[in-house]
């Protein structure tokens, strides 16, 4: 395994859900140490892609290699061992609602590392400090704002010092301040902890602002991939519509329907 080898390597991925094709031959390389963004309109299966990488779903065809291991081929204990090296930030934060902020961040450490209580406390406080919420350690998840909950979840995802973190729509529904905080945090943590980050998002401005490389997904395929500057200047019609948010283009404004006159006259 060389340092140049991509951390996540997806080849020929096909996946169906209730008979509907979600991915039809997707190839993606997630380079080590960088922030990669997976972008695309809602419903293109971006979250599904993260679940496939995390081994929560299995592909119909194709390979997903994470640090050289084929996720779909691993047995349960090997998969769980690999997951201790992956962090995932869910859209809702997915904090355990019956535990305090401190206990939520301590949870993976208590589960996987038998540390003396004093060391555990220091580690958790350091993780909370990194996301700026050391002072909120006694709060319950219900007392947190959406942005704070995501930062706690981020501290928890980093608790075991993973090699990579996957972010599921980290910017969705955030006010401008928490959005800015999250954008800075993701970049800073990635660089300081030498992580590899995968962001799934449809917020073009924020994602393009921090990503080193962007994959644009649509209709089950990778439409285009490259650094943000390249995609923003892309000549391809589809990428241009998505990156600049035009209302009409290859993706039509109107849902397919019969001609308006016909619909009105024969109603």
């Amino acid at each position: 395994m060389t340092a140049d080898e991509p951390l996540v390597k997806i080849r020929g991925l096909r996946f169906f859900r209730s008979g509907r094709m979600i991915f039809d031959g997707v190839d993606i390389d997630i380079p080590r140490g960088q922030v990669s963004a997976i972008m695309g309109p809602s419903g293109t299966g971006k979250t599904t892609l993260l679940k496939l990488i995390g081994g929560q779903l299995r592909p119909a065809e194709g390979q997903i290699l994470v640090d050289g291991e084929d996720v779909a081929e691993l047995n349960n204990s090997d998969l769980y061992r690999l997951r201790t090296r992956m962090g995932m930030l869910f859209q809702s934060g997915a904090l355990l609602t019956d535990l305090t902020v401190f206990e939520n961040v301590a949870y993976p450490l208590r589960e996987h590392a038998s540390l003396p209580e004093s060391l555990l406390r220091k580690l958790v406080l350091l993780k909370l400090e990194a996301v700026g919420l050391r002072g909120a350690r006694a709060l319950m998840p219900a007392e947190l704002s959406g942005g704070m909950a995501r930062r706690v979840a981020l501290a928890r995802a980093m608790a075991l010092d993973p090699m990579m973190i996957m972010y599921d729509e980290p910017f969705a529904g955030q006010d401008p301040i928490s959005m800015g905080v999250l954008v800075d945090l993701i970049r800073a943590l990635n660089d300081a902890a030498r992580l590899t980050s995968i962001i799934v998002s449809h917020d073009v401005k924020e994602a393009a602002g921090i990503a080193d490389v962007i994959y644009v997904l649509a209709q089950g395929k990778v439409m285009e991939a490259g650094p943000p500057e390249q995609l923003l200047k892309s000549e391809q019609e589809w990428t241009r519509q998505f990156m600049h948010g035009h209302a009409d283009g290859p993706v039509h404004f109107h849902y397919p329907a019969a001609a308006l006159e016909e619909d009105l006259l024969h109603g």
Partner: protein
Amino acid sequence: MDALARLGRVGIDFLENLGRAHLLLWAMLRGVDDLMRRPRLLVEQIHSVGVLTVLIIAVAGTFVGMVLALQGYYILTQFAAEQMLGVMVAASLVRELGPVVAALLFAGRAGSALTAEIGLMKATEQLAGLEMMAVDPVKRVLTPRFFAGLISVPLLGAMFSALGVLGGFLVGAGLLGVDAAGYWSVMQTRIDFYGDLVNGGIKSVVFGVACTWIALYQGYEADPTSEGVGRATTRTVVHSSLAVLGLDFILTALMFGE
């Protein structure tokens, strides 16, 4: 032909659900060694599904015993057999009402709460979050709740029966003037340890497994939406109640038949 296809569909869905429920049961049972290492999880769940159900069981048990004494006294006096009141109350409670009513109340109070809790944990991605933290949600979340239900229901059933006997005594001896010593002594000679107490206990254990299993399965398989969790909660109460009544008939026929 359509009706036939629909019937087939219902049958296949039923079998599929049954299969998944058994796979879940197996997965929960396999978590038992993990649970041994974390007894605190079990104690917490016994508190939340068992201890918090005590009040409703205590009140219901006492009142059911009191009503049994009133009704039984009316019949027994017609045969001048008032001294049998204690046996009648105790046998009805220990053999039938204790296990059955306690299980029905458990399904309504604790089973529905279990389904809603697990369903919401699924809807808010907490279960998926555990999986991604390399923690098996079945072992960590479902197994302790399953064993807590399994332990709590027989204890709640026993408590229901005990308080019912006491309620019957209060009404019988205090209100209706039945001989207090006779109430207890006839009960003591006529109630059989194996035939009555053990059989009632077995019923309670079976109902405990059924109610908790149904509640956890419904929560785990709920659609992760508010509507889905609501529907799953309703299903838990309906299925548990029917299962308890159906199983009670089978068990009674096996234990007290002939």
